[in-house]
């Protein structure tokens, strides 16, 4: 990455981190209802991956989706508003953390069901190159759109995801499987659930595989560029095994449970490899002074503060609109069900 790209990556990662720290505060203050899963520690993965995508590309996200959505460029104000269940939220308060989406940016949604979004990415990848698909039919094997499916190491044991690996490989779809291998599915270590590593498994499906240091945004970016180019040029789907770590609990409330599945030493070891500190150090190597970094941090802080202010000012949806958006083509009888209220 050149200095400009690295600065942009730093800003994105800082934005995700501060967004998530603010989410924790807002959850604890009961300003955000429901359950949220923080992305803290994994910022390099979404940032590096999204930096390699073009404007028409599509991604599917997970229950731990805030990083993907902000990394792809969604507005943090509308994202906070969504988490706070307001009408100006990305989904007008109908989705929340686990379903947040911005289809205009190709974000086909976070997903509350582990592994379930990956086949959407496969379908969208196919649609971009299929004859008769929306948009220009392709004349050569270069395709307009590449899809990225994000998922965790735990998802790798879900049938629908494994089916999608196979289908994507068999049909040579232009897509990237981005595995955020943070070592745990809630409390269960990856090794307790699978005999082989995610990369070994992906290799068996016929996917092109790379293992990536998911704590290093430049390494992720470099692998992501290779993967997206591989897919876009018609050489088939790619699997990136991004080794990373979440610094906090599985979700915001986990610390209340006092679970002991990770040692203090292990957490501290990974925190010592904080991907944002690493980028800051590299930027110093590119000639930035501490004051420059402090200024970047201030800008991010102001951006997040303004986003929270925007979200707080937004109204709650009217109860009478609870059934809005259910159907794209409402019929007389779907709309006038007797006595639903």
């Amino acid at each position, binding site marked *: 990455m050149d200095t400009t790209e690295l600065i942009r990556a730093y800003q994105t990662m800082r934005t995700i981190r501060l967004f998530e720290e603010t989410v924790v505060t807002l959850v604890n203050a009961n300003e955000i209802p429901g359950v949220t899963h923080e992305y803290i520690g994994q910022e390099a993965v979404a940032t590096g991956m999204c930096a390699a995508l073009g404007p028409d590309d*599509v991604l*599917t996200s997970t229950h731990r989706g805030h990083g993907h959505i902000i990394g792809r460029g969604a507005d943090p104000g509308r994202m906070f508003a969504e988490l706070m269940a307001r009408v100006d*939220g*990305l*989904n*007008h*308060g*109908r*989705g929340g953390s686990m*379903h947040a*989406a*911005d*289809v*205009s940016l190709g974000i*086909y*949604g976070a*997903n509350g*069901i582990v592994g*379930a*979004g*990956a*086949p*959407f*990415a*496969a*379908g*969208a990848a*196919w*649609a*971009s190159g*299929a*004859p*008769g*698909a*929306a*948009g220009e039919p392709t004349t050569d094997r270069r395709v307009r*759109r590449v*899809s990225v499916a994000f998922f965790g190491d735990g998802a790798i044991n879900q*049938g*629908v995801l494994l*089916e*999608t690996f*196979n*289908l994507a490989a*068999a*049909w040579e779809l232009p897509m990237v499987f981005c595995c955020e291998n943070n070592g745990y599915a809630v409390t269960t270590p990856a090794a307790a659930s699978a005999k082989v590593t995610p990369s070994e498994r992906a290799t068996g499906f016929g996917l092109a595989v790379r293992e990536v240091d998911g704590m290093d945004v430049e390494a992720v970016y470099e692998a992501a560029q290779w993967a997206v180019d591989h897919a876009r040029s018609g050489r088939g789907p790619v699997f990136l095994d991004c080794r990373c770590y979440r610094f906090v609990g599985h979700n915001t409330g986990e610390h209340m449970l006092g679970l002991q599945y990770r040692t203090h030493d292990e957490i501290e070891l990974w925190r010592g490899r904080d991907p944002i500190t690493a980028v800051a150090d590299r930027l110093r190597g590119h000639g930035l002074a501490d004051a420059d970094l402090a200024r970047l941090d201030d800008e991010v802080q102001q951006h997040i503060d303004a986003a929270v202010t925007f979200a707080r000012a937004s109204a709650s949806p009217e109860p009478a609109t609870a059934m*809005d*958006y*259910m*159907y*794209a*083509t409402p*019929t*007389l*009888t*779907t709309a*006038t*069900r*007797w*006595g639903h209220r």
Partner: protein
Amino acid sequence: MTVMRYQKALATAVRDEMAADPSVCYLGEDVVHSLRGVSSGLAAAHPGRVKDTPISEAAFTGFATGAAMAGMRPIVEYQIPTLLYVAFDQIVNQAQKIRLMTGGQTRVPVTYLFPGSGARLGLAGQHSDHPYTLLAHMGVKTLVPATPQDAYSLVRSAIRDDDPVAVFLPANCLPRKGDVDVAVTVPIGPAAIRREGTDVTVVAIGHLVHEALAVADDLADQVDVEVIDARAAHPFDWHTLTRSVTRTGRLVVLDDTNRTCGWAAEVAATAAEELFHHLRAPVRRVARADVPMPFAPVLERAVVPDREAITAAILETAKA
């Protein structure tokens, strides 16, 4: 207007929509060679738009969702209707909910076809269900065409609809012959009154419409039966039912799915809530026994709604 078998009308609807709209595509197991007879000739006519899928119902159902969000209008064929259970999350928890969950940011115009739904003597426990109730319960637009004309026109409406639509094509309807006018449009929603009558309203869906009509003819000199073909398990046309029951004061509901929490239970309960003062007799249901389909044909006949049970229900309701 031509006379066509139901199965042919279904295939013609798909063929005509594929020809009319280049974003329509067809996915399923063994569809290139048209094992189920719905996609004959499609792969040759539209190379690239007809895909034989791996035996991965969850993945290809989700694949259709993503393709639909990206602008396609996929049709998904399930080789066996009970494969719905394998794909259930991808239909009811994903495709059906995405529009609401995204606050209307996207549409999911997918058509799920379940050809040969229901019991067919001897297919036993895992191949005999007729699971439209499950999707209606989840708010999925769920059609069960009874006639060749509806197989043609409702399937075309389903493909053109911007929401997920499931179409169950009863095994007992596939060989039926009837007039089909390809110029006729049948919208999703309205029920059809197949026989007018004044004494008892029978509401049926799928092949039971024909059973109801046969029984109504048999009973013609005793009871004047009105037969309503619901056409859709959801949305259900309450207005047509209300108009009919307001006149007859008597209602029998026919439903070839399990009795407990079945589609007929919903129709009967709502009629009891809303039409109580018009009813002159208790609402009756004729439904399947709550049992996995036993293999022996004699046992199968014993647990699905048949003319004998329908006749008894109509006569009891007429007398009550």
